[in-house]
């Protein structure tokens, strides 16, 4: 048996922890993440709960835990949707070629040229702040990423002998795409799903930081940071926990993505 890449082990462990915390927060947190207790207001770690209390006395540890559900939920949903649409665009472009490919990839180019946060803020203005807005804004930005990657990967598959043979046998483009192309590019897509979910968590945090994310009292790491900035000199501990949570979550997903890539494509292992 081949040795598992270190990044896969660490990344997998962090991601498992993250998912575990998110799931656990649905049934149990040390304290109710929405229950305020003004007496504990801005108290530091140890004085009130493991990570202290926020501006209205809620337990920071519990909010961070519950925030994992929000972050992962928004980022993963957005990535799945953006990934599905993008992959569909990519494999279609690769399969059809010609004018359709040009139009699809040109549209992709337009989408790619909008700076992500700015277009997300625009969408936020259009749809109002909320989870749906975050998912849409992040998902849309993922479409061109997946489209490019899946198109490039699919084109390589199309050039392979067994696909050519299938064509000769009279199989249609759609059937070949489903039977041969997608199974052969799925590893690359899965790697991207992990990495893009990580980026999605970063984007979600950014949007929430700007007040365009999920509505309170749904816990959100980005909004925690926005609140923490107000109290930065009175309660510096509020800045640390949510930021660390974001960084660790993204790190875990990135490592997981890298590890999966190394596992499925060992040639790249030494290069990156």
């Amino acid at each position, binding site marked *: 048996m081949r040795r598992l890449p270190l990044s896969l082990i660490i990344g997998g462990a962090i991601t498992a922890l993250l998912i575990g915390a998110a799931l656990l927060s649905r049934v149990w947190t040390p304290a109710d993440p929405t229950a305020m207790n003004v007496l504990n207001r801005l108290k530091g770690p140890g004085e009130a709960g493991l990570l202290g209390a926020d501006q209205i006395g809620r337990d920071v540890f519990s909010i961070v835990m519950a925030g994992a559900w929000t972050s992962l939920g928004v980022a993963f949903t957005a990535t799945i949707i953006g990934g599905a649409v993008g992959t569909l665009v990519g494999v279609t472009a690769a399969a059809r070629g010609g004018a359709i490919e040009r139009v699809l990839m040109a549209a992709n180019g337009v989408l790619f040229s909008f700076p992500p946060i*700015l277009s997300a*803020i625009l969408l936020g203005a259009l749809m109002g702040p909320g989870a749906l807005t975050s998912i849409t804004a992040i998902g849309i930005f993922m479409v061109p990423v997946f489209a490019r990657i899946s198109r490039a990967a699919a084109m390589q598959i199309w050039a392979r002998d067994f696909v050519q043979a299938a064509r000769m046998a009279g199989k249609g483009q759609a059937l070949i795409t489903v039977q041969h192309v997608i199974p052969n590019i799925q590893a690359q897509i899965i790697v991207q799903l992990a990495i893009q979910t990580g980026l999605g968590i970063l984007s979600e945090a950014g949007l929430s930081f700007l007040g365009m994310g999920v509505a309170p009292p749904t816990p959100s790491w980005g909004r925690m940071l926005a609140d923490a900035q107000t109290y930065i000199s009175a309660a510096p501990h509020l800045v640390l926990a949510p*930021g660390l949570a974001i960084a660790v979550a993204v790190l875990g997903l990135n*490592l997981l993505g890298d590890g999966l890539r190394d596992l499925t494509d060992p040639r790249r292992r030494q290069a990156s």
Partner: protein
Amino acid sequence: MPFLTRSARRIGGLLAVLLIASLVIFLLIEAAPGDPASIMLGTSAAPDTVAALRAELGLNRPLGVRYLAWLAGLATGDMGVSFTYDTPVAELIGDRLLVTLPLTAMAVVLSVLIALPLGVWAANRPNGAVDTLASVFSQVGIAVPNFWIGLLLILGVALGLGWFTTGGFPGWGAGFAPAMGALVLPAIALAIPQAAVLTRVTRAAVIEVANEDFVRTARAKGMSRGRALWRHTVPNALLPVVTMLGLQIPFLISGAVLVENVFTLPGIGTLAYQALSQRDLIVVQNVVLLFTLIVLLVNFAVDALYSVLDPRLRGRT
């Protein structure tokens, strides 16, 4: 000359993309709820006052007319007049660029200064201590949100050590040093994730080039390891690094929106954000279009650079 015709076609394509982008931006902003006139007048204004202001701002013209008027203005270099500030948009954007451009430039320089040496060193001794450091830095740097780095810098450096201010911008009129000083922490916050990405790319590129035949040949001919590195490997590895720098521009702009927000800098990101919440439509349209243009131009430049530096790519699309 194929190169020229291809360039002409690319410029045509760029303009087409820009046109589509302008329409998308315009429609998005128009579709957003909120009326600039009632926002400007606040919560005690009577409906007829709002109507009067709408008329004054030209908001009761049909949608198509306003879109075409905007484009016609742009064609003659006129971006229109801001609703809220009542000043030409170009002037407003110019003022704000005086903050954002130095900020992003400083961040780019800083990230290159970190990434190049670190990446090259790491590649030169794979799996050594520096390589481990570099890979930890690049993994962590990518994962850390830049606005959080900004908050940590405010906490540690500005509030803790008392160096630099926690935010705000004294203006260039206050002198070069105070103005630059106000940009140092934001630039660091902006630079770290960029540096992480670039370190990774630099390392990978250097390793790849080092394995190419011409470098092996040079080494085989007795060129020292260091000399081969600086004479052959690094110059040839710069291309992917420059490309990545270009591809990161949209993220740099996005980052600037957040970091300017953290440090309350009167930059173009803040302008876009404020103008949007005030529904200063004309300002938002122009800023977003400008950002799009910058991204397109940078991509264009990167592609052009590619085909100039790497002859193999000529003739490919």
